[in-house]
């Protein structure tokens, strides 16, 4: 993947396949789309203070979409660039499939790329080619001095690069995206008491990696978890400080059951078209899809060739409107908004200046009431999509920041709340400082994803619905 002419080789192969597709499909009034995805993935996984797995995968996939009138079908294969005949066979298969597909009751748009577009600005070869030895050295530095016989390190150093390239029979123009990414999550866990604390890093460039910061955050949490007294919190209402992981997780959930136009039409949203232009959450809440932010591993064109720029979703609590993927827009007669991409570039704006930027500042901050710090929400799920109700448990380093300046260690608690409530009028402040929080979940193709969120968000008077008697 590192060779200089590799990009040309990929695009030449796509052009060759396009010619084949034109020859085979055009006489049957069939259009073909070819999406190429290549990943070079490395993952060093740690557990019990050892490397539990060191793995790498190099995979190339070709997704072939066939369109005939209102019919659509697809065929995907794992392949490599030397297997042109296999890929051509895949095109033949997609052509056969679409003939037997069922017509949609709407006309699907077939991309016509008006120009060739290439974006490698978010590719850093130094990060993509980081070595095994460097990965290990980084992790060792992140947990340096913190492991004991009882406190064991675990976590991951995941890094790699991915290429997405696409072409359609409708145009000889191509789109090409190359990204590099890394996600680092050192965890320290007490083998007997079963608590865990985490520090997390996301990198688009090698220079984004900062082992010293991770070590500092882990050390802060470890100190409290060793020295302060754990307790089961009484049920009731708390002023809660959410950390970046928890905020990003809830913003992502909003992306799913909130402002996604297609899902709204299918009944999976707590927002409605009538709410567009109206204030529905806190005026401190400004959320954009902002592909100018390199830390989000952005796509500056969507897969239909639409330019992607800063797209407001909420402005000071006012709901701007739904995002629309092309296929949903086709089905529901809506205007596509350039959101047919593997992931959005969500960015929640920071708040006032005089707010904590680091965990150490948060702990040291004077407070007029007890505050419950929840850095991370585990296993979030949707209880009621129509009301935006989600449920999840705290994990990875919650703290009770008492009014008198002392710190307690709460056992895990559960929140069952509407996102409208969490992001509503109870929001007291958001940190001015924002961070990219890596939310990559590569179940299939490598798809690095990060959400930019404030470091912390304070929400007053939120009820916890369950309180553990242990970690």
């Amino acid at each position, binding site marked *: 993947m590192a060779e200089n002419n590799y990009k040309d080789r990929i695009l030449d192969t796509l052009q060759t396949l396009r010619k084949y597709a034109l020859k085979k499909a055009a006489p049957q009034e069939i259009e073909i789309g070819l999406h190429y995805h290549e990943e070079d*993935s490395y993952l060093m996984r740690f557990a019990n203070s050892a*490397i539990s797995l060191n793995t790498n995968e190099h995979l190339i996939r070709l997704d072939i979409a066939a369109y005939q009138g209102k019919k659509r079908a697809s*065929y995907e294969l794992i392949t490599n660039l030397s297997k042109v005949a296999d890929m051509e066979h*895949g095109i033949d298969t997609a052509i056969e499939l679409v003939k037997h597909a069922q017509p949609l009751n709407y006309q699907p748009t077939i991309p016509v790329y008006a120009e060739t577009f290439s974006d490698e600005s978010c590719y850093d070869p130094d990060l993509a080619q980081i070595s095994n030895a460097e990965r290990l050295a980084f992790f060792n530095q992140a947990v340096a001095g913190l492991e004991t016989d009882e406190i064991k390190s675990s976590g991951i150093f995941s890094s790699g690069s991915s290429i997405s390239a696409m072409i359609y029979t409708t145009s000889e123009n191509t789109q090409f995206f190359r990204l590099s990414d890394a996600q680092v999550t050192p965890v320290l866990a007490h083998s007997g008491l*079963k608590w865990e604390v985490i520090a997390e890093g996301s990198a688009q460039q090698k220079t984004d990696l900062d082992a010293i910061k991770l070590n500092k955050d882990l050390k802060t949490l470890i100190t409290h978890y060793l020295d302060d007294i754990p307790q089961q919190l009484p049920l009731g209402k708390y002023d809660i400080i959410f950390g970046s992981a928890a905020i990003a997780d809830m913003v992502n959930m909003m992306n799913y059951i909130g402002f996604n136009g297609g899902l709204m039409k299918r009944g999976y949203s707590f927002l409605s078209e009538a709410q567009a232009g109206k204030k529905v959450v806190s005026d401190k809440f400004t959320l954009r899809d902002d592909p100018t932010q390199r830390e989000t591993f952005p796509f500056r064109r969507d897969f239909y060739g639409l330019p992607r720029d800063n797209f407001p979703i909420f402005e000071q609590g006012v709901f701007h409107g739904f995002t629309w993927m092309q296929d949903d827009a086709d089905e529901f007669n809506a205007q596509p908004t350039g959101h047919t991409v593997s992931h959005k570039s969500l960015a929640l704006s920071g708040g006032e200046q005089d707010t904590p930027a680091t965990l150490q500042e948060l702990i040291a901050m004077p407070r007029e009431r007890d505050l419950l710090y929840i850095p991370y929400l*585990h296993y979030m799920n949707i209880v009621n999509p129509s009301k935006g109700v989600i449920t999840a448990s705290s994990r990875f380093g919650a703290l009770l920041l008492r009014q008198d300046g002392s710190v307690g260690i709460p056992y895990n608690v559960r929140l069952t709340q509407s996102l409208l409530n969490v992001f509503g009028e109870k929001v007291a402040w958001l940190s001015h400082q924002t961070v990219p929080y890596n939310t990559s979940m*590569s*179940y299939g193709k490598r798809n690095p994803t990060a959400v930019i969120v404030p470091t912390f968000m304070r929400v007053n008077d939120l009820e916890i619905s369950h309180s553990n008697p242990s970690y």
Partner: protein
Amino acid sequence: MLDQIKEHVMNLKTKGASYVDTRWYPFEESNSLVMWNGNLKDANYSRESGIGVRVLYKGAWGFSASSDTSDLTGLYNKAFDNAQIAAKRVSLPVRLAEKDDIQASFSSPNCINPMEVPLSDKVAFLKQIDNQLNQPGVFQRIALLHFIRKQIIFIDSEGSEIEKQITEVFAEISVLGQDEQGETHKRSYNLGQEGTDTRGWESIDPQLFSENAERIVAELNQILVAEPCPKDDRAVILLPGIMFLQTHETIGHALELDRILGYELAYAGGSFVTLDDFGRLRYGSEKLTARANATLLNSPGSFGYDDDGIPCQDNVLIDKGILVGAITGRQMVEEANAKAHRQIFNGSSGANRATSFYRVPIERMTNINIDPGADGNLDDIIAGTEKGLVMDGDRSWSIGSNREQFHFATEIAWLVENGQKTQVVKNPTYKGNTLEFWNSLSAVGDKSTWKLEFVSNCGKGQPNQIMQLGHGVPVCRFENVRVGE
């Protein structure tokens, strides 16, 4: 190809690897079809092939995988390099439990290869079901089919050679409706083991789906006019449509030995279970006997041999309420016995599986089942319940990182008052602490209530893996459960 693989495996042994295995997937095919409101939104086939190589060197694992089989030397060297680096940070060197070298094959029992069924037949089936779901009250209707077929050839440095032909069939139909307040509600049906012992296209029975389509539409319309679920403490009677998930989340995942030993602490989480608990912990009431049975016919949790090359087994996990077993592979049983300073496990239970050639095997559920009980059928259990809720259909599930507490929402529930099932309620939920909940198990239905449910999408591990498995569960009743929150 096979000879080349064997040669590379033995080459790494001579270089100093203590163990090497290879999983070669000559092919894995997948076919998914989704019809949504009459539109065939997805008609996708996929095909992949490749090799995954796992190497144990000085007590540490290295793994490498590629879809490109033209450079096997490079692939094996990379796996070996990865293991050599991993060996620089070892706390307890990996040891593998003893096993026999096995030359064998396994094929999922099936009559009609679903990949060879014409697309037009599959679309016709979906269309027929879609038409039946298109009834008053139904706002969204979804019908989906998913088929997987793969060939796996396993070779290891201990002399095993196993070939597997796996066929998977999944099918689901769902309807959504909106009530007067504009809230969306769902009712669904998933194909389980519905009387067929084979796992091909023949397990898609149009009559079965037709009957269930009629039922879920009728039940959805009851939900749309129902009162909200009460918020109080009462008995819950879980039908297999939610009982499988309760078993999955609070027994299955909690008893994966890699979780217990801390190998998932950075992601999926740990377990409240400790090594001291085996043979001692009262996990549930005496009515609870749970087992991992990978020998059942027609289930995604039955696969012949795991990816350590261990034959599938039927093992008790919880015996009359007492914890006795776990879901294990070769590495973890050795580590657990060493850490516990006693022989808890006598060899692997054959549950180490990878989702693809490019993922490494980890402990995965097989068929995690609850034995039928002696408390009669569903009517008998309802008749013996003064104040309760019959619950069915998984709508939402969330569980603490050590599997110690949970919150579930179901699609539908019926009130039980004085031994009678009365009205439907909407937005039902229940929650609890795992051990307290299982110890409140007060009734276990007989064989007539037992159903083997399929799970197509259990996620675990880093890199992430999706696994298929099963849960055979009866109707169960639990006492004093908080509902409606």
